[in-house]
């Protein structure tokens, strides 16, 4: 059961009771797990799992209907020559392109995710943010990736951050809510842990590391802390929250490192696209290349796959 928060004081008191994080320890643990050597059939299993967890993303000012269409096509059938390659989890676009993505994806398994709430900075009024969300949902978004107000968080206005999440959650209706913490701007691991709990208490279905628009995006220590947060939250409340790592994850090797973190921190319940996602664009092609390499036993050229 989700605990109810009646006031900012209660929220603050609850968050202040969370254990601190020792930066050196968490980085050492993440580095140690990064030395896991995943080979042979376990590597194939991991690659397919990673493909199925990709939120194939395009978030550029230059995005067009054509760009979104080709992305959606790839999302449905990442490797046109191999039907055993799973579809990705979702396509992630700006709100104005949701309807188009929806029309290409139809009622396939691939979800439409939309960033909203004045992504990536979040610097807009709550009314504008909520309108952003409602439009995306109305256009057919299954998932909303909102950003928290990092300024409010860093200046201690935790109640404001919390209220916004609650309001956005309500505006989402049946759409799933991913709350982007933008951990690169929160800077400290203590902040990442507190923001994770704040977002989960506010009603997040997923907590997500980054927008991909600031210099520091997902890192393995940050992911480790967020995984520990969802694990502890599940133990405390029974609510199972997902984690999405986004930004800077470009290679199969990177993706497998994150899967190892999931595997050794929260376990099998999170080793599914319902609970763990990669927000990425170029990652998918590297996963496909490594998959083919595993099958052929020889290195594969990049042009084997479409550049989308």
């Amino acid at each position: 059961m989700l605990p109810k928060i009646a006031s900012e004081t209660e929220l603050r008191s609850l968050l202040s009771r969370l254990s601190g994080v020792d930066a050196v320890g968490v980085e050492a643990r993440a580095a140690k797990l990064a030395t896991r050597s995943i080979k042979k059939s376990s590597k194939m299993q991991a690659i397919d799992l990673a493909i199925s967890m990709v939120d194939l993303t395009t978030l550029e000012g230059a995005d067009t209907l054509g760009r979104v269409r080709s992305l959606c096509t790839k999302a449905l059938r990442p490797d046109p020559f191999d039907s055993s390659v799973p579809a990705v989890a979702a396509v992630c676009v700006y709100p104005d392109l949701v309807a188009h993505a929806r029309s290409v994806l139809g009622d396939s398994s691939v979800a439409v995710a939309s960033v909203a709430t004045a992504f990536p900075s979040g610097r807009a009024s709550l009314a504008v943010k909520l309108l952003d969300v409602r439009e995306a949902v109305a256009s057919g978004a299954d998932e909303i990736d909102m950003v928290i107000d990092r300024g409010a968080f860093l200046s201690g206005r935790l109640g404001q951050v919390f209220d916004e999440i609650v309001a956005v959650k309500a505006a989402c209706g049946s759409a799933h809510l991913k709350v982007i913490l933008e951990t690169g701007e929160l800077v400290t691991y203590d902040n990442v842990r507190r923001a994770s709990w704040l977002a989960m208490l506010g009603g997040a279905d997923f907590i997500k590391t980054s927008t991909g628009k600031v210099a520091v995006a997902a890192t393995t220590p940050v992911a480790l802390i967020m995984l520990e947060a969802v694990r502890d939250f599940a133990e405390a409340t029974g609510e199972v929250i997902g984690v999405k790592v986004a930004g800077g994850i470009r290679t199969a090797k990177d993706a497998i490192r994150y899967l190892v973190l999931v595997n050794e921190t929260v376990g099998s319940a999170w080793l599914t696209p319902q609970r763990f996602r990669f927000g990425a664009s170029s990652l998918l092609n590297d996963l496909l290349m490594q998959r083919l390499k595993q099958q052929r036993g020889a290195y594969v050229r990049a042009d084997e796959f479409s550049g989308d």
Partner: protein
Amino acid sequence: MRTCELTNLVEIDVSENNMEISRLGALAYDPAPESAALAKLQPSYGLFIDGAFTDPSKHQQFATLNPATGLPLAMVAQADVRDVDHAVKAARRAYDNVWSTMSGAERGKYLFRIARLIQERARELAVVETLDNGKPIRESRDIDLPLAAAHFFYYAGWADKLDHAGFGSSPQPIGVAGQIIPWNFPLLMAAWKLAPALAAGNTCVLKPAETTPLSALILAEILEQAELPAGVVNILTGDGSTGSALVAHPGIDKIAFTGSTEVGRLIQERLASTDKRLTLELGGKGANIVFEDAPIDEVVEGIIDGIFFNQGHVCCAGSRLLVQESVADEVLRRLVRRVDQLRVGDPLDKNTDVGAINSAAQLEKIRELTAYGELEGATRYTSSCRLPDTGYWFSPTIFADVSQSHRIAREEIFGPVLSMLTFRTPEEAVAKANNTKYGLACGVWSEKGSRTLWVAERLRAGVVWANTYNRFDPTSPFGGMRESGFGREGGRHGLEAYLNV
């Protein structure tokens, strides 16, 4: 704000939620073994005396085993009294004629060479270490080997700077050092002994442990490649009788010993009425103190590292866990969950966390002491990991509800076995931590700096790790108080053991 009643998260009882973290490790890892062939072992090895290997067939030989399989790896020579005498005399000649007259700068350059050669042959040495000792390749590759090379690199730089080491101007070497090292970090301990001794201008006779002689013999090959003058370092394999002969030899000026307190005591007695110098690095029963405000996830990892690193075959292992009562249940719950995740098995597999117990004798000792733990009424949690069928193995084990008076809280087990006790106040934590005859290492976990330093000041331990455990560095002095020995290895302090000051 949502206007609902406050639910205090901290008060939520986990057991009331049917949510249980599903089994960890659902993503299976296929075996990822490092190749044993990289070790390039010879069928038999002689002794390394006066710059050359002796003919193995001239000695009585014994097999060194792979503890993960129980099978022999190679035959090594049993050095007898005459061999010890030859080695000591060679070391004396090298001291008188070459090493003590060479400039510090030139000595240093030899040490730099050795450091580089160790780096060049690191992968081979890591495999040898893992085969002979049973430790996971991840540890020999990422910890033992880099640290061994770094140790030579560090002391190389001291060789021509001894005037500035704080022991007065032109401090003199002691002479010929006899060095006896244990089986838990075979190559690293050789580096800890040889590097400062050579930098200070001494010559050495090194005796590796009976069960782990191989990496020292590869090191002998490296010394040949480095063209270290003959006799400066001599390496004698053998059992306790070899060490005993070395201690007794009148030509030795100094003994440096790392090993058990029992043997250390015997050596100290033997040398008591002589002029020989002595440093001892002996056993321990390290307390790892966890305060309620500690960073809990890092605490769990730190406790795991503290006791299961190198199968717990670590003199400074955090084998006594002292947890503040207010968080004891929480820490235990997380520890028990975590210990189940440890990957125990083939030491050559890159994903192995806990390797093999070094010998049948050590395994027997661990079994005996853990049996006592149960007999004395402690609650035992054993990792559910599957153990291989052959070789020497022991599942990572935690004992809760342990009292200060229990044997498992007082005796060094030297294996993957943790004893958990509780305390209420910082004062009580310090009192319990110090309530031992040992004084090697302790850990303190807290987010409160002032308390950490308060505790650190009061702990009777040569090393205190705050919010970390089992960290080593060539610049950092290491060594014990009380019955954990005397003298320091590492850092500027480590030179003192090999200078006549």
